Structure formats: structure tokens, C-alpha cells
């Protein structure tokens, strides 16, 4: 297949390497160095999609990041990605892409009916629709809109690509490698500054790639190539292409997305697809250039209507003619540059210039080439449905209100230039309050807010000579401040053609009796008439107009539409543009892949996984693991075909009858040392700590200042000034911060040090009536009798040559001990316990059995200490000292906390002794009461009591103290269950606590 619109020579593509690709199922050819857009245009393909709302045929409008139409679904190496701009996607062998917004196909599109029904889809359509009956919305509108709209389909498959994050620091970050960026980078680099130069396109040089200028006796492009080549050899410079700086955040933090592999058929081994750079820059030079803006006229969205600069770029960079009968419609000199390029390639353009009698070097050149120029002429409307076939043109009066006689001229493309809009997004994101520059009808950055400076076209400076001068100067001044070097650089001579003033003209009036759609926002289908409706309906603020009409809200963020929208509002409202103001620019400047934002923190890597030293033993012994925060803990150890219920019941039962061992390494551990350690504990915990003897442990509860329980655990006095605190697994980090807060800020006079030792100790809880017998065999030289090691006692022991700490504490309510050894010996300890415990029928038990044991004992845990309960609620008021002060004590006097019918922990048993009560169920008096049924309390934890062989739950119940014996209902609408229950004591098993002391 021939590339009918590719010229013989020229362009920066590699004609040696032909590439095949598919678009909407059809095979085409292009060259290495093409974009998908340039390759399609080379093949004469202009119809690439349908518009968002009216589904009108859409082609290419730009040649880069500003493209509003040509958004495609890309298929690459078995993956698919939506919302890809064909103008940015580089061609590779085997690329496949499809149009979006089309159903069933780009040529026959059902949504295009909207185009004929558009009277029903005016501005605010979506807002108004949302207010219609809800049933209509989800049955009729939503499915229709979902099917017909959208910018492609996100893949539902696992993304096999890898994305990386990188943190970088530099002296000077430069956004954009046009003349300004290159000059700034070069000057700064020569001063020894650490420079990062970022270019979003594959090729460096920006406007120098397409402009007819001369710098230091070289073409603009050759000069740019030379500078880039030199920068690349400098160790203090990072030069990155395919890298878009899309966000400017606080304190000079900028984020850049580097497309590492998108231009390749598949990602190379060990390479990421994209790399997200977080760059902290001392200074930022914004040289992001400018984007040509359209002139608004009838049917200006027809395929074949495009920016004149894009037509020039397709020709100069890709060797592609966007048409053979071009019409150039301009209000400034830029259109002539495009016309001249056409002419040089043997194509005869017609130039319509809205100006009456402009004079400049460029226009002279065009005239000398014999180009047909019509002054005071405009395009009234494009004609043709899927492609421009002709244009209605007319002369226009000087006040731009009256059109002359309408003539129809044949053409196959309309290249439009409405002057240039500086790309101020990054400056605006930095907090810079932009200002309106009258001479160019556009906003430019104002006073710098962060350490940023905007230069060149991005600052509204369109003269190359001035751009280079200011940028070289800025580059050397900014770097001089940092490196204190001052290497002078000679600013090269510049030859460029002088331009004349542009015409402040942006919208062609409608001819009498015609009602052409004149689009402002091409991607979101916002036309002049929509803005008029919004204003008629009373919207005034530009932010409201934007949201009501969706002007500038598409994925191109109104790069080509914003200013024309503002012009229109200002005209109708009779205000000047700066008074209307522009909408706020927010990151990202261009769409960024979610994958790039997430980076490598996906799947198992979305958070770290913590494992105890005994983890491999658990794995080998059929442990079924459960996430406990970031820890992996055995939930139960499966035997045969056991399920969770059967396995955990067996394990819990074995603890009650023989002995079990549980990995408790995950408990938070904090080492506390210093002469004031006891005083700190006394202030942190609700109970008294000043008289705890050495070698004794104590259970404690700590509150937040608002009186709510923060955490509980045991703390042991290891020696005179040395304590070992344990916290719950979940609260370990918070408790450490809490202690540090009081020690550093509130009571700095206390001489105490705290440090986390969670990872230094491996822990095993040995629980059950036979635990002492086992312990004695593990520590034959220690006296672990009830007298030698009483309840809440502590001793050190020798575990087959390993130093161990033995605490007689119990969470299960059984006679129990906890043995700690240094983590490296954790597995050794565990294996010894299992080996020696064999004769006592030891079984390891997981968190499910652990829960069962604590629930039927009425011991509180995280589900009761849920950030909403005070000590009384958990039946822990006995631990609240009346004598001393402590953190949060004063709050316990709050009237709600001392109310007579204050909530309190209770036990709950189903009347049928069969039905397990779902956790989270509400307790109500009357299951038939009308909704909302008054809630008396909720089920905090449920288990199957192994002691009584029936379900048992804990609940936090209003007036729980006086509710024992009452019959209520546990309701779980979620599980569709209503269970009649009886309220009992929370201490279901061994209420006097005799076993732990036995």
C-alpha cells in the first residue's frame, strides 16, 4: 500500500525502516520516527474518531499534546490502553489502535443520532439528566451513555508492565527543550549546575524543528542538535526526552512521567514501561512554549480542519502533506509560514487573512512565491461530513460584523491560525497569579511564587532573538547563585523574519439564516451556542460556566479551547477578558497512566509484608495465613480437609485441655529505660505503676487525652530502671509516637528513653493446663512452680543454651506463659517447644483459636478497643486509679462518660444455642419495630465457645450493666439474619479467673 500523502524527501523520519501497523483492523505502513497520527495522515486517513457528545466525525487537529480529537485505544504486546493521543504515540512495528467513542464503528456510528437530536443535548444536559427520576437514570441514560461515550476502555487484566518511581534533586529543572530551554540549560550547565532538561516529545528542539531560522550560521535544528549533543556529554546534566513534567507542587517539587517503552513494540526485559520522577529543584525554568489557537467558524470540527502549525509540523518533521488543496485561514503571520512550506513542496495553498493590509517579511516572501492571498477574508463554514470537501468563504468588514457574499471554494484541508497561547499550566500550578497580556490576547505568568521563571513563548515572547538572550541570561544567573561559577557564554547571532501584529479576531459571525455549529471545545463538543445558553441561564463565574458546559474539562484540559471560551464570555458579558479570569490549571498537564502513579507498589508490594522468624515453620506445617496489619499470621494450621471452623475449634479445645503454642512475635514491644521510667508509666497508664517490683508484670490500659482507650498490654519490670512494654499488634507504632510525644514535648524533664524492640524479640505463648509441665522441661534449671514463677511473674531462663525471657501472662485465660528469645533464635525456640511439647499433646494454634479463647473469657481486644470506648465500657474501670492523675483522666468526668446507662461490654448467647451471630449485628429490643429500629448496641466479636460448645459473642450494649438476663434480638441486615439472644456476663468461662493463677 502506498503512502499517498508522503512527500518524496524531507522530514526527520527514517525512511530506511518501514513499519506496518493496524488501525481499526486495516493494515497500513509508516516509517520509524512517525507518530500514529503522521502515519495515518501519510495514508490519507483523516477520520479517526467520533466526538464525545454528538458523535460527529473527528480527524486530527494538532500534532502533539494539544490534540483534542485523535484519542485512540492502543493495543501493544497483549495489553490495551485507552485515552492515547495518536499525535503523541510513536509508531512501532505491529502497533494496533482503534477509534473510541464509536459504536458500532467509526464510519457508522449510532451515537451520531445525537448530532441530529442535539437540540435535546444542550449545555447542562448531564446536570439536568441527573435530576430526572433516578429509575430513568440507571435503566435508560446510564447504559446508553456508558456504551456511547467514553475515551476508551480500561483493561480489566492484571497489568504486566512495570512502573518505577525515582526521586531526584537538581539545581535547575528545565521544562521544555525549545530555544529557551536549550539556552537556559546550556548556560546553567556551563556554570557547573546540576541540570535536568525534560522534553515531552521524542525529538529535542521544540519550535526549532519546524521554524525557518538561523542561529550562529546554522539552521535552528542543527543548532539545537549541537547543544543537545554537548549537554549529553556533561556529567552534571540529565537530558530526557519522552518526559512530560505534568505537575508543579509545593516547595519546588515537580513530577515528570517518562515514557520509557511506549515507543517500542514491547518493553525490554528489566525495563519499566514508564518512570515517574519526583524532582526537587532549587530553580525551575519553564520553557514550555506556546500552542496555536484556533479561529472559530462554522463546522470547524470537520476532519481536515487543523491547526496551521500542525500542518507545518506534519510536513517538516514527518514529510506528510495533510492535503493537496489547502486553505490557510489566519489572523497573523504564522499561517504564511505554513503556506510557504506547502508552496515549497509543489502544493498551491490559498491564504485567507482576516487582516486588511498586513505587511511583513514573511508576507512578502509568500507574495514573491506567488501564493494566492485574500485579505479581509474569512472561512464561514467548512463543508463535507467525514472530510472537508470545500469551504464557504466571504470577505469581512473591518468591524468584523458583516460578511460579504458567500463563495464556495474547493479544498481538502483548512489550516487555521488564530495566533499563539503561551503554555502557562506549570507556572499556574506553582501558584503564580497569571496576568493578561493585551498585545497577545493571552495570559502569561505574573509574579513568581516559587523558585520558577517562565521564558520564551511560554512567557508570551515570540521573538527568537529575545528568547535566546533572556534564556541564556537566566540560565547563567540562576546557576551562578547556586554554584558561584560565572562562565560567560557568547550569545549566538540570530536571523529570523520579523512578524507584523496579529488581528484581534477569533470568531467568524454566522451568516444570515445559517445555524452552523461553531465549536470551542472540540473534545467535549462545547459550541458557541452552549456558552450562550449557560450565560442565559444565569451562570456568570467562568468556573461555573466551565462546569456547566464542560468547556475545557476533557482530557486535553482545553489547551486549544480556553481562550476562545473566555473571549466569548467576555464579549457576551461585555467585560474584558482579564475580568472574566481563567479557570485554575491543575495537575496533571496531560493524562498520566494510573500504573505510573502507583509505581511498584502493586499486589503484594502495595505494602510491606512482615513475617515472624517462625514463618517458614508455619508454612511447612500447613498454616493458613491471615493479614494482621502488615504482618502475616497463621490463622489456623490445617489438618487434612479441615476448614477454618473445624481447625480453630480443635486448636482452641487443645489449649483448654492440653497445651498449645501461639506465635506472638507480632505484638508491639517497647524497651523503656531511665530513672523516671516508672513515673512515665504511671502517667501513661490508668493504673498505678510506682510500686511494681522488679521481676513482675502488670496489665495496663492507656487512654488518649479525650478519655478513649488507646491501647492495652502488659509491661514488665526487668530491672530497677528498665521496663519491657507490650502493645497490641495494630497500635505498636502509635503507642511509640505517643510516648515520644509526651517525653519530648510535654514532660521533657522525665529522664527516660523509649525504643521499639518489636523486631528484636521472637515470642511464643504457651497456654493450657499442661503448660507448666512443658515449661519445666524446657527450663529444667529454673523453678517455674506456682511459687517460683507466680501469675504475672517474670524470670530469665536458659533455653538449651539460648537466653530467654519468661513472662507468666495469659491472654487465653488458661495457665499460660510467654517466652521471648532474640529473633535469630525464634525458630530454634519454636522447634524446641514443639519437640518437647509432643508428650503433652502440644498443638500450635493460630489467631482464630486465639480469638475464640479470649472472647469466651471476656478479654477485650481491638474489636472492643475500637477508638470509641472508655475503660468502663470494657469493664476495665477497676484499673482506673482514683488517686493519681494520668493521660485522659480529666475527660472521664464528661457527663456522657458517667451516664447511668453508659454502654458496657456483655456476653451474648443465641437462644437456640446454634446460630452464630454475625459480627457487627445490631442489638435491638423489637425486631419488628419500624425503621430506623433503635440500636441498643452491637456485636463486637463472635466465636464458637469450645468450653460450652455453642456460639458466644461479645457486645457493647447500652446500659449493659443492668441488661444481664434480658432477651433481645441481634439483627444483621447485611447477612439477612434476625437472631433471638440472651444477654449474659462477658466472662463466660472461668469468671473468677482461677485458671490463670493455678
Amino acid at each position, binding site marked *: 500500500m502506498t503512502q499517498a500523502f508522503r512527500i518524496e524527501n524531507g522530514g526527520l523520519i527514517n525512511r530506511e525502516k518501514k513499519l506496518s501497523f493496524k488501525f481499526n483492523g486495516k493494515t497500513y505502513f509508516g516509517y520509524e520516527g512517525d507518530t500514529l497520527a503522521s502515519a495515518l495522515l501519510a495514508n490519507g486517513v483523516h477520520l479517526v474518531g467520533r466526538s464525545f457528545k454528538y458523535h460527529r466525525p473527528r480527524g486530527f487537529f494538532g500534532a502533539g499534546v494539544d490534540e483534542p480529537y485523535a484519542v485512540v485505544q492502543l493495543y501493544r504486546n497483549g495489553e490495551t490502553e485507552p485515552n492515547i493521543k495518536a499525535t503523541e504515540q510513536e509508531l512501532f512495528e505491529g502497533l494496533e489502535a482503534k477509534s473510541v467513542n464509536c459504536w458500532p464503528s467509526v464510519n457508522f456510528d449510532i451515537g451520531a443520532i445525537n448530532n441530529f437530536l442535539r437540540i435535546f443535548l444542550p449545555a447542562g444536559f448531564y446536570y439536568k439528566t441527573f435530576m430526572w427520576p433516578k429509575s430513568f437514570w440507571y435503566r435508560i441514560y446510564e447504559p446508553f451513555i456508558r456504551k456511547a461515550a467514553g475515551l476508551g476502555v480500561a483493561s480489566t487484566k492484571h497489568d504486566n508492565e512495570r512502573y518505577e518511581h525515582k*526521586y531526584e534533586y537538581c539545581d535547575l529543572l528545565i521544562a521544555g527543550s525549545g530555544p529557551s530551554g536549550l539556552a537556559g540549560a546550556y548556560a546553567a550547565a556551563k556554570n557547573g549546575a546540576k541540570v535536568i532538561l525534560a522534553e515531552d516529545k521524542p525529538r529535542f528542539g521544540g519550535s526549532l524543528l519546524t521554524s525557518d531560522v538561523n542561529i550562529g550560521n546554522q539552521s535552528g535544528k542543527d543548532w539545537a542538535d549541537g547543544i543537545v549533543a554537548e549537554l549529553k556529554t556533561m556529567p552534571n546534566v540529565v537530558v530526557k526526552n519522552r518526559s512530560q513534567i505534568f505537575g508543579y*507542587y*509545593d*516547595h*519546588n*517539587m515537580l513530577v515528570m512521567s517518562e515514557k520509557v517503552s511506549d515507543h517500542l513494540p514491547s518493553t525490554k526485559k528489566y525495563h519499566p514501561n514508564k518512570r515517574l520522577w*519526583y524532582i*526537587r529543584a532549587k530553580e525551575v525554568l519553564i520553557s514550555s512554549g506556546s500552542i496555536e489557537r484556533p479561529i472559530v467558524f462554522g463546522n470547524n470540527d470537520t476532519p481536515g480542519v487543523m491547526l496551521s502549525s500542525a500542518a507545518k509540523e506534519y510536513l517538516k518533521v514527518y514529510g506528510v502533506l495533510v492535503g493537496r488543496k489547502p486553505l490557510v485561514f489566519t489572523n497573523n503571520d504564522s499561517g504564511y509560514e505554513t503556506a510557504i512550506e506547502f508552496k515549497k513542496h509543489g502544493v498551491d495553498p490559498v491564504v485567507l487573512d482576516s487582516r486588511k493590509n498586513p505587511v511583513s517579511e514573511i508576507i512578502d516572501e509568500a507574495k514573491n512565491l506567488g501564493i494566492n492571498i485574500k485579505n479581509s477574508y474569512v472561512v464561514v463554514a467548512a463543508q463535507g461530513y467525514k472530510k472537508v470537501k470545500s469551504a464557504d468563504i466571504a470577505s469581512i468588514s473591518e468591524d468584523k460584523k458583516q460578511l460579504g457574499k458567500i463563495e464556495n471554494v474547493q479544498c481538502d484541508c483548512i489550516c487555521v491560525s488564530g495566533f499563539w497561547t503561551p503554555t502557562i499550566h506549570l507556572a499556574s500550578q506553582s*501558584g503564580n497569579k497569571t496576568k493578561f497580556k493585551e498585545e497577545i490576547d493571552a495570559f502569561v505568568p505574573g509574579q513568581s*511564587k516559587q523558585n520558577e521563571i517562565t521564558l520564551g513563548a511560554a512567557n508570551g515572547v515570540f521573538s527568537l532573538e529575545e528568547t535566546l538572550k533572556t534564556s541564556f541570561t537566566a540560565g547563567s544567573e540562576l546557576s551562578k547563585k547556586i554554584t558561584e561559577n560565572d562562565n560567560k557564554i557568547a550569545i549566538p547571532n540570530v536571523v529570523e523574519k520579523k512578524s507584523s501584529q496579529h488581528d484581534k479576531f477569533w470568531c467568524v459571525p454566522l451568516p444570515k439564516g445559517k445555524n452552523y455549529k461553531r465549536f470551542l471545545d472540540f473534545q467535549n463538543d462545547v459550541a458557541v451556542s452552549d456558552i450562550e445558553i449557560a450565560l442565559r441561564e444565569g451562570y456568570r463565574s467562568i468556573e461555573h460556566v466551565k462546569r456547566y458546559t464542560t468547556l475545557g474539562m476533557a482530557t486535553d484540559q482545553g489547551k486549544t479551547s480556553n481562550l476562545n471560551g473566555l473571549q466569548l464570555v467576555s464579549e457576551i458579558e461585555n467585560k474584558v477578558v482579564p475580568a472574566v479570569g481563567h479557570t485554575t490549571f491543575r495537575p496533571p498537564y496531560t493524562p498520566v497512566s494510573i500504573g505510573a502513579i502507583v509505581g511498584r507498589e502493586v499486589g503484594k508490594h502495595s505494602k510491606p509484608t512482615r513475617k515472624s522468624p517462625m514463618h517458614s515453620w508455619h508454612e511447612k506445617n500447613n498454616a493458613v495465613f491471615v493479614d494482621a496489619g502488615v504482618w502475616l499470621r497463621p490463622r489456623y494450621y490445617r489438618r487434612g480437609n479441615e476448614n477454618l471452623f473445624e481447625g480453630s475449634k480443635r486448636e482452641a479445645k487443645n489449649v483448654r485441655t492440653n497445651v498449645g503454642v501461639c506465635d506472638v512475635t507480632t505484638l508491639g514491644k517497647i524497651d523503656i529505660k531511665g530513672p523516671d521510667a516508672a513515673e512515665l508509666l504511671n*502517667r501513661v497508664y490508668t493504673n498505678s505503676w510506682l510500686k511494681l517490683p522488679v521481676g513482675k508484670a502488670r496489665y495496663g490500659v492507656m487512654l488518649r*487525652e*479525650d478519655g478513649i482507650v488507646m491501647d492495652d498490654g502488659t509491661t514488665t519490670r526487668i530491672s530497677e530502671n528498665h521496663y519491657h512494654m507490650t502493645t497490641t499488634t495494630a497500635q505498636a*507504632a502509635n503507642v511509640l*509516637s505517643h510516648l*515520644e*510525644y509526651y517525653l*519530648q*514535648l*510535654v514532660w*521533657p524533664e522525665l529522664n527516660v528513653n523509649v525504643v521499639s524492640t518489636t523486631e528484636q524479640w521472637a515470642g511464643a505463648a504457651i497456654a493450657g493446663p499442661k503448660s507448666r509441665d512443658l515449661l519445666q522441661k524446657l527450663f529444667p534449671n529454673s523453678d517455674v512452680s506456682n511459687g517460683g514463677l507466680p501469675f504475672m511473674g517474670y524470670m530469665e531462663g536458659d533455653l538449651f543454651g539460648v537466653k530467654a525471657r519468661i513472662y507468666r501472662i495469659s491472654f487465653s485465660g488458661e495457665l499460660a506463659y510467654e517466652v521471648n528469645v532474640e529473633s535469630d533464635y525464634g525458630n530454634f525456640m519454636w522447634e524446641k517447644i514443639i519437640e518437647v511439647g509432643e508428650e503433652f499433646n502440644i498443638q500450635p494454634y493460630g489467631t482464630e483459636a486465639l480469638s475464640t479463647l479470649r472472647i469466651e473469657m471476656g478479654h477485650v481486644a481491638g474489636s472492643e478497643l475500637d477508638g470509641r470506648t472508655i475503660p468502663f465500657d470494657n469493664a476495665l474501670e477497676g484499673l482506673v486509679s482514683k488517686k*493519681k*492523675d494520668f493521660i485522659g483522666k*480529666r*475527660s472521664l468526668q464528661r457527663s456522657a462518660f458517667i451516664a447511668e446507662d453508659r454502654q458496657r461490654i456483655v456476653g451474648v448467647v443465641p437462644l437456640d444455642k446454634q446460630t452464630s451471630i454475625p459480627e457487627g449485628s445490631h442489638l435491638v429490643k423489637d425486631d419488628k419495630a419500624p425503621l430506623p429500629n433503635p440500636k441498643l448496641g452491637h456485636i463486637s466479636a463472635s466465636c464458637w465457645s469450645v468450653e460450652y460448645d455453642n456460639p458466644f459473642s461479645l457486645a457493647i450494649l447500652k446500659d449493659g450493666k443492668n441488661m444481664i438476663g434480658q432477651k433481645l434480638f441481634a439483627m444483621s441486615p447485611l447477612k439477612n439474619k434476625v437472631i433471638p439472644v440472651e444477654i449474659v456476663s462477658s466472662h463466660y468461662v472461668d469468671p473468677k479467673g482461677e485458671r490463670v493463677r493455678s
Partner: protein
Amino acid sequence: MLYINCPHCGMRSQNEFSYGGDASVKRPELNKEVSDQEWDDFVYNRKSLRGKHLELWQHISGCRQWIKVERDTATHEIFRTFKADEEVA
């Protein structure tokens, strides 16, 4: 992302810190009689300032020190940082 000058470690990115609220709040002394109003002011009542605000941050992924940061809540400009025991003039 803010760039915070830890008085112990130097310039560090915000993601090494955790926020700790208003640094001007003073905890009533232990064992002192305090009125409901005083206690409520200490526990709950905070000004939601626009502008200069003295606040606490903890360098949790660094030196673990609590520090005071003088920051503009509207512009995020950070003026000064202080050690926990430094008096703010």
C-alpha cells in the same frame, strides 16, 4: 509535597514526617484542677487558621523527634522550624 527542614536532620520530604496538630496547645499540668472549659479547649477546640500556624510534626521515618514548624496554611510556605524544646519567639 512539602520540604521540611528537620532541625536535627536537615531538609527532608514530607513523606518522612507525620503531622501532629497545633503546637501552641499546652497540656494542663498534672494533678491541677482544670475547668471543663479549659479542658475542652485543650482536648478539642482548635482554631482553623488561614495563614501562619505553628504546628507539630514528627520525623517518624528519620530521627523520630517531634519538631515545631511555622507554616502558612494557605500557601504552605514554611518560615522556620524548631526543636521540641526550643522556645518560639
